[in-house]
């Protein structure tokens, strides 16, 4: 089921929490929703799930607007809110049964679905406890289980891996990736490696505006511009090498990073690579090339560039 968001706007008092944003999410896609605190991620998610009303613009789920009272869109969505609110005084199984009943799972299938979710989310050992007796990680698993209990076509997860231990994080990420093959998933997170591990596409928003939208690779390319190489060459004076590198026609700029180790950062001219030229240069001069690494812009840098100020 596709989600289309068109010119969505939401104002709290004088502040625009979400400002005229539009994007699409397709079936079989995991969208990573990034942004600093207060950027409007949760507000957008709340509007998609129907918790708060839409001020301007429209959200269409499977082609039907959420403002259409006939659409019954909530049944297709599984939602894990921020901070994972749960009824702490309820036993896990009763709670899952309650959620399944509300989401219209057939009575005969409820037991089976609960068993499946308990297995999938690794709750087997704790299943007879009350939710309030569980540790944070297990509560998070209950939160995921309630979101998926009715096998929804759309999953909206607000920071799904907070509070999980590293093994659980890997399991949950794998689960999200697997689910994302057939379903539409939107997940928000602060953990940038998580986005790279799970998401097909990244959407960065800042102060209610979309500042980046694309796969991790395209974002990197956009942010990076020219190729930067880390180069280490032995058997010559640093100055000599620097001069020779500068003379190459694909090189735009050379930075001497460490004089003792002859370590350089070489920036190429736009759209060109200097790797072959540097190698040839070393061969010609009989220098030894001990390091040649392309410097990738980290997602953290992209995030900082786009969202600071």
């Amino acid at each position, binding site marked *: 089921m596709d989600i289309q968001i068109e010119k969505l706007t939401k104002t709290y008092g004088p502040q625009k929490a979400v400002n005229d944003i539009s994007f699409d999410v397709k079936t079989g896609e995991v969208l990573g929703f990034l942004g600093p605190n207060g950027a409007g991620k949760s507000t957008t998610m709340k509007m998609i799930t*129907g918790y708060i*009303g839409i001020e301007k613009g429209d959200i269409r789920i499977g082609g039907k607007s959420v403002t259409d009272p006939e659409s019954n869109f909530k049944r297709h969505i599984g939602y894990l*809110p921020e*901070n994972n*609110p*749960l009824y702490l005084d*309820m036993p896990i199984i*009763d709670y899952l049964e309650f959620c399944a009943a*509300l989401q219209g799972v057939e009575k005969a299938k409820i037991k089976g679905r609960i068993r499946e979710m308990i297995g999938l989310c690794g709750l087997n050992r704790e299943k007879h406890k009350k939710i309030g007796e569980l540790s944070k990680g297990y509560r998070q698993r209950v939160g995921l289980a309630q979101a998926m209990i009715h096998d929804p076509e759309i999953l909206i997860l607000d920071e799904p891996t907070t509070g999980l231990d590293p093994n659980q994080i890997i399991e949950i990420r794998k689960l999200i990736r697997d689910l994302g093959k057939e379903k539409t998933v939107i997940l928000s997170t602060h953990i940038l490696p998580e986005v790279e591990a799970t998401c097909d596409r990244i959407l960065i928003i800042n102060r209610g505006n979309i500042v980046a939208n694309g796969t991790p690779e395209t974002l990197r390319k956009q942010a990076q511009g020219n190729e930067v190489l880390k180069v280490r060459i032995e058997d010559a004076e640093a100055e000599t090498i620097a001069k020779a590198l500068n003379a190459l026609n694909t090189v735009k700029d050379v930075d001497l990073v460490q004089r003792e180790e002859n370590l350089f950062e070489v920036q190429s001219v736009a759209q060109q690579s200097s790797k072959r030229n540097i190698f040839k240069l070393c061969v010609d001069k009989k220098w030894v090339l001990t390091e040649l690494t392309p410097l990738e812009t980290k997602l953290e840098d992209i995030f900082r560039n786009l969202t600071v100020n």
Partner: protein
Amino acid sequence: MHTIWTIAKRELATFFDSLIAYIILVLFLGFSGFFTWLYGNDIFLVGQANLRVFFNIASWSLFFFIPAITMKMLAEERKTGTLELLLTKSVSDRQVILGKFLGSILLVCIALAATLPYVITVSNIGNLDNGGTICGYLGLLLLSTAYTAIGIFASSITTNQIVAFMTALFIGLFFHIIFGVLAHNFTGSLGQFFDTLDLQSHFESISRGVLDSKDLVYFLSITLLGLYLGEWSLSKRHIS
């Protein structure tokens, strides 16, 4: 309807899981039993086999206990954030309000059912007026629907249970006492007006065994208004 019942069932289960239900049942029975059988306006002094004394006492106990039942229904959910989870399931605001309403009315019904031994006792002493007794219970039930609706509205406007309790009691106080007092202090149409608003007079007329459509309309209007305002206050999240 199925959804409303699911929510009501959960509310009831939570009451009994968290001991609140037992505490309220024990207090309600203790309070109304003490004042009916042991203290003051003693049922034995009336010289008639009826439960009028009990109905009067019970109306006061319900006046205090219903806000205690309803205070956490929405305030707590709003505070812990579970309201967001609940309202993003395929559930409408109205179904949530009605489910919570039904859940607390069921608890009140259980409390009232637990007073049936009183009826049996009195009917053994003398010739019990069956119609009057049924009307008395009906009156208590109608009064409970009105106070529950007020309580749910009070719970919907805040995240603090104590504030919800006090607000419900404060609004209830007008219907239970203040309108009655004002009705006595004013004459003419203003007095008439306050008398119409006074809950006690409507309750008494029912518990005397007189079923008047006027009284039914009165209780149903308070109930519907309370529930409607509760729903309205839930839906306010869409605007701000």
